[in-house]
């Protein structure tokens, strides 16, 4: 089987417009979550991690002068991908793939007050826009699989590379904060009134966020790369909106990803968990990690820094996990104070120096979907 490596990457978020700026802010303990008072999104103030339009437009104007043609999401995703392509120095030839991950895309184009055509709400339109911007020769592959999309996109890239369909694949993910999603999670009573507290005893729900991320995945090793040694996605077969009480799908995903990694995996030194901070999700994860005998492995959720960035979260948190591994530093899970799950987890409380040889990234979402991917230095 061909080896596959995760290499150059870019995070565009409320904590910065490059991966290094984001990591620096995390090292300093900064969160991108703030109280928002945008009445177009909600009548009452709410906490979220939002990218400032002004800052985004300024950065975007450096690469394109027709900013008004593009939605916020498109600008975020194009900017992220542009930076990753530039850094890699790779040519976009007919063996270069593009995988796009988004849960809701430009869903706000359905709103009657949107300045954009309803056509933009189709993810295929988002794909075309990105493909044309970069004059990409191959048709983008679009993955939309709820909240596991971002990490599933990495698994999909690995498989298409191993099937020799492409030599290299750029993965780009993005989701923005919309009234659509905010009102939806509110109708579930799943939104936290304070910044979210993953795995904490007093957690009360999700904080939403927005981010665009990109990553080059290829079959040739270079100094930037870490190897993707195993992945799996398993369904709970239990409930479409409630996490499994036994953590079945997540447990199976971890087990199968570990099996695929085989002898390449000596030990998992760190878990980058999903940790949305809803009562049921975090509880489910603790059960799955316990069943997989991973309760003692240092774990964090990045939702306390970024909120839940939906289809971008899996890629965002994989990139941060890779940075953690490269720098030999475990980043704390902010918002966590007191253990609040049936099976206690080893939640990271402060920046900790540790040699990380391999880590696992997990995610779970509506529809009972779960994905796990293992990265190795």
């Amino acid at each position, binding site marked *: 089987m061909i080896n596959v490596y995760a290499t150059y990457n870019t995070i565009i978020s409320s904590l910065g417009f490059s991966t290094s700026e984001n990591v620096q802010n995390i090292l300093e303990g900064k969160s991108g979550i703030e109280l928002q008072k945008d009445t177009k999104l909600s009548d009452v103030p709410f906490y979220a991690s939002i990218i400032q339009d002004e800052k985004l437009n300024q950065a975007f104007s450096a690469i394109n002068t027709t900013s008004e043609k593009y939605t916020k999401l498109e600008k975020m995703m194009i900017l992220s991908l542009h930076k990753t392509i530039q850094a890699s120095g790779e040519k976009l030839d007919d063996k270069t793939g593009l995988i796009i991950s988004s849960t809701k895309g430009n869903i706000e184009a359905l709103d009657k007050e949107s300045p954009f055509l309803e056509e933009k709400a189709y993810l295929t339109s988002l794909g075309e826009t990105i493909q044309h911007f970069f004059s990409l020769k191959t048709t983008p592959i*679009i993955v939309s699989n*709820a909240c596991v999309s971002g990490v599933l996109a990495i698994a999909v890239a690995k498989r298409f590379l191993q099937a020799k369909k492409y030599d290299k694949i750029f993965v780009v993910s993005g989701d923005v904060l919309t009234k659509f999603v905010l009102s939806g999670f509110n109708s579930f009573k799943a939104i936290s009134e304070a910044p979210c507290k993953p795995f904490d005893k007093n957690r009360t729900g999700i904080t939403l966020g927005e981010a665009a991320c990109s990553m080059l995945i290829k079959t040739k090793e270079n100094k930037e790369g870490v190897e993707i040694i195993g992945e*799996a996605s398993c369904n*709970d077969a239990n409930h479409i909106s409630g996490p499994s009480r036994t953590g079945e799908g997540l447990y199976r995903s971890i087990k199968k990803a570990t099996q695929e990694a085989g002898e390449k995996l000596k030990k998992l030194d760190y878990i980058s968990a999903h940790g949305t901070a809803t009562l049921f999700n975090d509880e489910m994860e603790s059960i799955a990690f316990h069943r997989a005998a991973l309760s003692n492995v240092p774990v964090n959720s990045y939702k306390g820094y970024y909120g839940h960035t939906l289809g971008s979260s899996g890629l965002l948190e994989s990139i941060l996990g890779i940075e953690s591994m490269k720098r030999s530093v475990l980043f704390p899970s902010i918002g966590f104070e007191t253990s609040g799950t049936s099976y206690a987890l080893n939640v990271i409380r402060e920046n900790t120096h540790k040699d990380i040889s391999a880590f696992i990234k997990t995610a779970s979402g509506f529809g009972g979907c779960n994905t796990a991917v293992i990265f190795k230095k």
Partner: protein
Amino acid sequence: MKNTVYIKAYCAITNTKMVCNDEVLCEENELDYKSFLKSIYKNYCEVSYPKFFKMDEASKLAFLTAEVLLKNTSMTENEKEDLAIILSNKSASLNTDRDYQNSIQDKNNFYPSPAIFVYTLPNIGIGEICIRHKSYGENAFYITEKFDANLLSTYAQTLLNTNKTNNVLCGWVEVEKGKCSSFFYLLSNTEGELYSEKNINEIYQSI
């Protein structure tokens, strides 16, 4: 080394007919597609499954297509447990997204419902099939301009060739603007008609 891949069964539903393994199971020109789907549930589902009526139209379509296909093929419980499901369409969940958007469009008539919101994701239909058949296998939902046999089958083959599963349910499931169309086929590395992209496209065109 690549294993041989077979088409074990297929099923397709449109506004007016349902075809399974080269046989037209029913044709109906009088009903709208919503009523047609209900009649398929009534006449072709062996189990009583009240949850069906809570589903959005796209999930109902996915559920029924899988139900009829799996009824018309042989599969052990173990095989079902590892069944991978890889679906696709163009509109994701826009049909239901529009309903949800209508419920939040007007400030004075604001009634967002969790029961609708949960179906504003294209992969929920996969979840419904997994619950019904106790399938814990690989899942993925792709968005493509039109039915793309090459993408689905390339991906399915990566799962079959790496022994992640022996059976992949692939297909297209679309509900939009008063029209529904589905086409599911079961790829297997054990038995069936020899798979080729040309084969599957011919079957798709013939429906």
